[in-house]
């Protein structure tokens, strides 16, 4: 396509629509900036005029005038137009075109990941962000467009995990807490009063038992002696329990 074909289109358009303003504008704009590629836009316009009666040429003029306004080509304008139409299909949460779209029973459109995260943030008060109607996972309808080949329920997809929460450190004094989390996990329980504290069983997680000392060292002898003492004590205690 070139200037000649553009002229042809121009003439055709003038004849078809009988509306001069588009042509005037285009001609003026192209004189100012001959590199403008109006023929890229023109076929679309012609297609429209051929299918519409002259009474609807208003819309054609609009397209034309909006395209001749832009000095740097027609791209931003067509984008703007698309944007207007896309607004209707935007997710109410991320404000982007809805992906894995779902519709609530109250009729509001969301991306499933967005809505899921919204429902996750308030599990006990699940309301529609737009109209605050009660909604839940089972009360939304997935939308399947023509383009989606796989008719996969977006709700079955693993939703993105919730964002990590970072909290500001407490200002001022550094309270160390209740001793939880600063070492291994400790749990102990026992039966009996103070002197029989030997016989309490102790579970220590995360803190390994001390290694057995190597043979022959004085520490090994000591440990052996101690274990014997405790064994005797235990036996004595059991005997006492039985006899008493």
């Amino acid at each position, binding site marked *: 396509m070139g200037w000649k074909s553009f002229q042809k289109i121009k003439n055709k358009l003038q004849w078809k629509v009988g509306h001069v303003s588009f042509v005037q504008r285009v001609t003026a704009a192209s004189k100012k900036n001959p590199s403008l590629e109006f023929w890229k836009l023109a076929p679309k316009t012609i297609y429209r005029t051929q299918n519409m009666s002259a009474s609807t040429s208003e819309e054609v003029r609009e397209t034309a005038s909006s395209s001749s306004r832009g000095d740097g080509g027609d791209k931003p304008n067509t984008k703007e137009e698309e944007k207007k139409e896309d607004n209707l299909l935007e997710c109410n949460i991320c404000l982007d075109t809805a992906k894995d779209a779902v519709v609530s029973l109250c009729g509001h459109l969301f991306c499933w990941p967005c809505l899921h995260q919204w429902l996750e943030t308030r599990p006990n008060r699940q309301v529609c962000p737009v109209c605050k109607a009660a909604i839940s996972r089972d009360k939304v309808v997935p939308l399947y467009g023509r383009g989606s080949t796989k008719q996969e329920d977006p709700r079955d997809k693993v939703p993105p995990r919730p964002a*990590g929460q*970072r909290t500001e450190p407490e200002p001022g004094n550094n309270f160390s807490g209740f001793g939880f989390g600063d070492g291994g996990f400790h749990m102990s329980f026992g039966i009996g009063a103070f002197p029989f504290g030997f016989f309490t069983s102790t579970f220590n997680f995360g803190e390994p038992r001390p290694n057995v000392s190597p043979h022959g060292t004085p520490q090994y002898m000591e440990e052996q002696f101690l274990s014997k003492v405790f064994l005797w004590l235990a036996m004595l205690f059991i005997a006492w329990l039985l006899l008493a």
Partner: protein
Amino acid sequence: MAQNENPLYEQQPTAAATVLTVEKDGDTVARAQNDGHAVTKRLHKELMFLMTSPDKSISAFPDGENLFKWIGTISGPQDSVYESLKFKLSFHFPNSYPYTAPVVKFITPCFHPNIDTSGNICLDILKDKWSALYDVRTILLSIQALLGEPNVDSPLNALAAMKWTKKEEYKKLVMSTYNQA
């Protein structure tokens, strides 16, 4: 410990990039990038929307490089004691935005029943009535409406709540507080 901290929390993109390289857990990195991206994308959209909006009584813009901190301005509603006054507000977006509300505070001192002396605002939509649908524009409009119609039943500033009905005195207090700035 490091894994629990989201590296993108209120940080500039440049700083985030350096933190991300330090992070070892690949999964955490991907997630953090994704989440941060979603928040910044939405904030960008809001900014675009605000800049093209014809409403002159409210405005907002990111405070410097950080997209997670904004400065907003509202003019007092017409036919109220706040008419012709301009108030600056700070917005502080959490990483979980828009699922949780931003922290909004008055920078300009404001004498009002529902605004305390340090600028905290008592507004239900910023607390329990928050919805992911709300954005900077709706927050600013709500606060603007709150200026004209305070809720004197649950005041943060008891003096302002008391004086609300005495217009002359109230106006004087509003002006003296405003002129502190």
